[in-house]
């Protein structure tokens, strides 16, 4: 299903947005990914993934408050949409399905 296609990085970003429910804006997402996945994310990669998913309809966003630390600029909070949820479900399901299809023999490493 092309409609629900998610890249690996996109999936992680989408999930992290879910984890940070209500607090998911650029800096927080980046830090969360760094913390949980132990993975350095460039601002460019993150932001482009967010906008891409927003235009696909997996995310929506609204402006939040501004702080002095941000030079008076507002934060943009992201939220998963129903479609985003579906995409996640679809992705997980397809993985699980594939996982279940693997014959037990494939994991028999003794002979190798």
């Amino acid at each position, binding site marked *: 299903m092309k409609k629900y296609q998610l890249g690996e990085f996109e999936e992680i970003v989408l999930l992290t947005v879910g984890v940070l429910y209500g607090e998911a804006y*650029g800096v927080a997402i980046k830090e969360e990914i760094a913390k949980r996945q132990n993975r350095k994310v460039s601002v*460019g990669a993150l*932001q482009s993934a967010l906008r891409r998913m927003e235009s696909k309809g997996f995310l929506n966003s609204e402006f939040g408050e501004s702080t002095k630390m941000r030079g008076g600029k*507002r934060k943009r909070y992201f939220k998963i949409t129903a479609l985003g949820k579906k995409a996640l479900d679809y992705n997980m399901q397809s993985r699980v399905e594939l996982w279940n299809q693997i014959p037990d023999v494939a994991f028999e490493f003794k002979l190798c």
Partner: protein
Amino acid sequence: MLKRLGERLFTFYCHPDFQEDIKGDLEEYYVLNLEEKGEKYANRKYLIDTFLLFRFSLLRENWIGQNLINYAMVKNNLKVAYRNMMRHKFYAFMNLGGLTVSIAACLLIAIFVKDELSYDTHFENSERIFRVQSYLEFGNNEFDLATTAVPMAAAIKESFPEVEESARINGNRTNLITVRNKFFRQEGITYVDNSFFNIFSFPLIQGNREHLLDEPNTVVISETTARKLFEDTDVVGQIIRLEDGTNLKVTGVMYDIPTNTHFDFNMAITMIDLPRAKSNSWTSNPFATYILLNREESEDAVIDKFPYLIENYLAKQITERTGLTWEESVAAGDYTEYSLMALTDIHLLGHKQWEFQVNGSVQRVYMFGSIGFFILLIACINFMNMTTARASVRAKEIGVRKVLGSRRKQLINQFLTEATLNSFIAIVLGTLLASAILPNFNAFTGKSIVNPFFGAGGLWPYLVLGGFLIGVLAGIYPALVLSAYRPLKVLKGETMQSKNTFRMRDVLVMIQFTTSIALIIASITVYRQLNYLQNKELGFDKDQLLVVNNTHLLGDKINVFKNELLNNSMVENVSVTGYLPASDIFSDTPMLKGDATSTDESVSVQYWFVDHDYANTLGLTVDQGRFFDPAFATDSMAVILNETAIEELGYSGNPIGQKIKSNRAISDDSAPIYTIVGVMKDFHFQSMQTEILPHVLFLGKSDFSISVRYKAGSTKDIITLAEESWNNLSAGVPFEFDFLDSMFARSFENENRIKTIFTIFAALAIAVACIGLFGLAAYVTEQRKKEIGIRKVLGASIFNLLNLLFSNFTKLVLISALVAIPIAFYFMQDWLTDFAYSISLSPVIFIVGSLGTLLIAWLTVGYQSLRAARRNPIDNLRYE
């Protein structure tokens, strides 16, 4: 700066809907980075992030649409540019070669300039550190000192709330020191206040910054010194013994002082028990004093309050000593003024007496900066000229493109792309070239610059920017000219160059040659001036003079040593004195005529202590009277003056037998009065750049070194002889020697370096200009191939033909010379005024410079022209 650049860039390309929050995010990262890793890192990271944010999904919408088309166009343009370069490899090679070499030269100059500007900026708070300086006048003497009075540091900190900390530093000597009974010659021994390390954040390897020099007899040494003395850096608590027997405890080891600072010490000894640091005299100014202000802006406040210091300290002391009030003493010609100099300015602007080292000069930075600029300009002009000159080759292409619907803008884009491609290739090659030359450049300039181009904090963002800039600068003119062609005319094969473009090309060639000629004249002048200084009559004989150092450590045996040397037939004369020319000694005192009753007419003289054999050993000429003679017991009260001193004191008539005395003699009857027994010819006892000052020789003990005048051709033997004799007497103190002529040559090292650098870059500028001329000549000759053929058939001689081809270039060079000569004259005249002794700018220099350039131009054009003129006309005229 980088941050703002990044912000602009981002605003430029990012979709407006996304800008606010992403910028906010960036700001937040910036603040985080600023706290964690410092400003530099944060700024850089910000810029890099904005580069990385350049993503398709974040771009402005109209960009996305347009970009797709442009992408194809850019790709096509690049392809066409590449094919063009491949088809005309010779021109491509010349274009790129010239540009590459000049970019490499520019980059080297840029890092040189950057290094000059980076002096002393690496200290924490360097922008809040200032040096206190003093300017004195007494009589007709002026002293502009980098130093100030001993009690200044304490007084200024106590009196001014703006001053957070103050520290003094004094002395920079080379002495023999002992560590574990081994002798070492140690350079850069200095005394500093405990607070010195609170002001200057020299990073430490070992030791506690809070307690470095707060006990008597403690010392902080540099890493290299530690390795030299102890072969280890973990040496806190170890003992170093000075010449006078003082034992110093090492309390800290600091990293070696970087080369881009005006300090140059290796051992910093505490001032706590230094007697001269306890002096309360405001009238002598021996200590360099640094202050740390609470804010950078407090500088003016401190300057405004200096009169308070003068009133409360200096003026009071003067009144105590002389009975005069401050106003009276100012009226009598004794005047003192204090000033501040920012730490970061010292390297380029500090040219006072008693600087720690010979500082750089702003003038030199400007000079090199402008040479760099001109080299680049010449290379850009090459590019413009060759592109427009070769326009006929491209004319058909342009015509066809236009007929097929290219708009002018697109053609301009195409040519700009070509130029930018060229400049990028040249930048890459130039950077590699500069990196390859850098080690040699470092060795040559005496700097230790690490490759600044690559890596995280490298200069590469500027290089990328520079690539675009050079591309646009060099490409815009050809692009405008070429894109303006009328397709109809071009395709019909009519001449497409209006008279105007010809003239423009001539102007550009003239700019190149004006620059080249000016640079040639400048380098000839610099060369001749420095040669003149080095070969100027010194007034003494610097050759065949061996100097043995550290002789004061021989104690009483110094005379034994002297006699042993004299016993050898190779030795002509031996003199015991530490006062030698070219050794940077500066010891001045005011002196008066014997009958003077006030200090108004005091003359500041340099006073040296020498022995009886001094004049013979150094080869000084005594004009009137005699030199010191053992036969006269009264010579201890005798003096020898140089001609300048005689003149300044006003003893021109018959100076022998006249008296002189020090200022002290006015109020103190017991002060000695000296008799002039001889007048010596002026000799250059200081740097050749300074005027010969009044100079007075006294008979006295100064046993820091022995000078040995020996017979020519026995240099090797004399060293062996002196060393053997020394080793018998010295009890383990190592033998150290030098030659007066090499000491003298060393004092010119800096100037010689500048001379060579200047010559190299000037030659480079000319070479690049010639590459352009060569290309242009090749093209013009090619264009006139048929004409030459026809003329030859009709009977023109080779000379006629060469004349035809040369005359235009000759005219251009001559006009350039007319423009260049006044410019060069003005600047070189200005440069020469800095020297006390300078050559006059003779017309020969200008004529040689201009004719030399003309000759080079002829040679460049000549090869092509001669080949064309000698070719069989059939080859030129035959079609198909």
